[in-house]
């Protein structure tokens, strides 16, 4: 499946791609062994297209990038964090609906 407008976030590029981003950024922390992560993936992909230019959307594989999730105390996935100017504005755990995510995004924009 094509992941249009989705940034692959790693421990190495997290600072430059997300914290230093000029627009708000949403990061989906996920892993291949997590069913609900796969359930929420299409919703995240839709948001990336819908908010193109206004919101940066990234996915961070927690198996390959352990440092970044540890930094935010993540012990459950999927966890979605919304960043604005390098700060956390919202942290959502679990496969939530698109409506819930959009409400949070609209507040941050």
């Amino acid at each position, binding site marked *: 499946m094509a992941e249009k407008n989705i940034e692959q976030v790693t421990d190495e590029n997290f600072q430059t791609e997300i914290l230093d981003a000029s627009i708000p950024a949403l990061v989906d922390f996920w892993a291949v062994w997590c069913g609900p992560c796969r359930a929420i993936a299409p919703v995240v992909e839709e948001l990336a297209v819908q908010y193109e230019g206004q919101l940066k959307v990234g996915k961070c594989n927690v198996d390959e990038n352990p440092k970044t999730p540890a930094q935010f105390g993540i*012990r*459950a996935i999927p966890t979605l964090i919304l960043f604005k100017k390098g700060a956390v504005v919202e942290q959502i755990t*679990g496969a939530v609906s698109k409506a819930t995510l959009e409400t949070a995004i609209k507040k941050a924009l």
Partner: protein
Amino acid sequence: METYDLIIIGGGPAGLTAGIYACRSRLNTLLIEKLTPGGQVLITDWVDNYPGFPEGISGFDLVDRMRRQAERFNLPIVSDEILSLSFDGPNKIIKGYQTSYRSRTVIIASGASHKKLGVQGEELLTGKGVSYCATCDGPFYQGQDIVVVGGGDTAVQEALYLTRFAKKVYLIHRRDQLRAAKILQEKALSHPAIEPVWKAVVEEIFGQGQVEGVKIKKLDGTPGITLTVQGAFVFIGIQPNTEWLKGVVPFNDQGFIKTNDTMATPIPGVFAAGDVRCKLLWQISTAVGDGATAAFAAERYLESL
């Protein structure tokens, strides 16, 4: 707005099965799912009691096969969250977050979600040591001590799964014996990493930013205990996803939808199937049966119009 013959709300085993039957009957059908098709099975590590898979199958793979099977019969699946069901003469109006839909019949297969304990610390520490999904979060507990709360099939099955990661698993149960299938009980009670704590309920989950322990109240009159653990996994049953149907279809006192044995609610053309329904046993195998029956009953109803 298009008028469908049948709209199925929810893409778990019940909804997907209804979709397979409806499409094979050439009903103009639409399935609406909030996330990705799968429902609770998506978070089930391993399924050993669904026939046809002699070695068992992962929940994810099972439901992926059901989705592919439904797609083979051209079941359209859209992603939307349903907010309400209302009526316009014989037609059913389904209002979603994205748009509205109209149909002559509806099968409600919106499933169920995990129950919460409702104790202090649970809400605050969710995602920070409190979990309702062993397959999602188990790997974060490598070499740590955890509690699993519950005594049914799910609790015992997931406790066994979590022994792959955790060093010690306390199984907290309010009674003095488990409710889970005997085969699961035998495995759990003979497992060196699982320690049952009988006649016990969780009173509080505590920790500064992360779970550091749980306070246990004993129901047999002995003093309460505090367990130092890094995780608390809660599997104490399900609650139906029916808040959006309050006052529209009749529930039992726990919110499960009442139907007759053709899956019909008292409202003509409205059916319910799977975990959302008031019944004896909530399983993948019974959801599949409900879905088939509901689709057949919907077809009969359409023919009678």
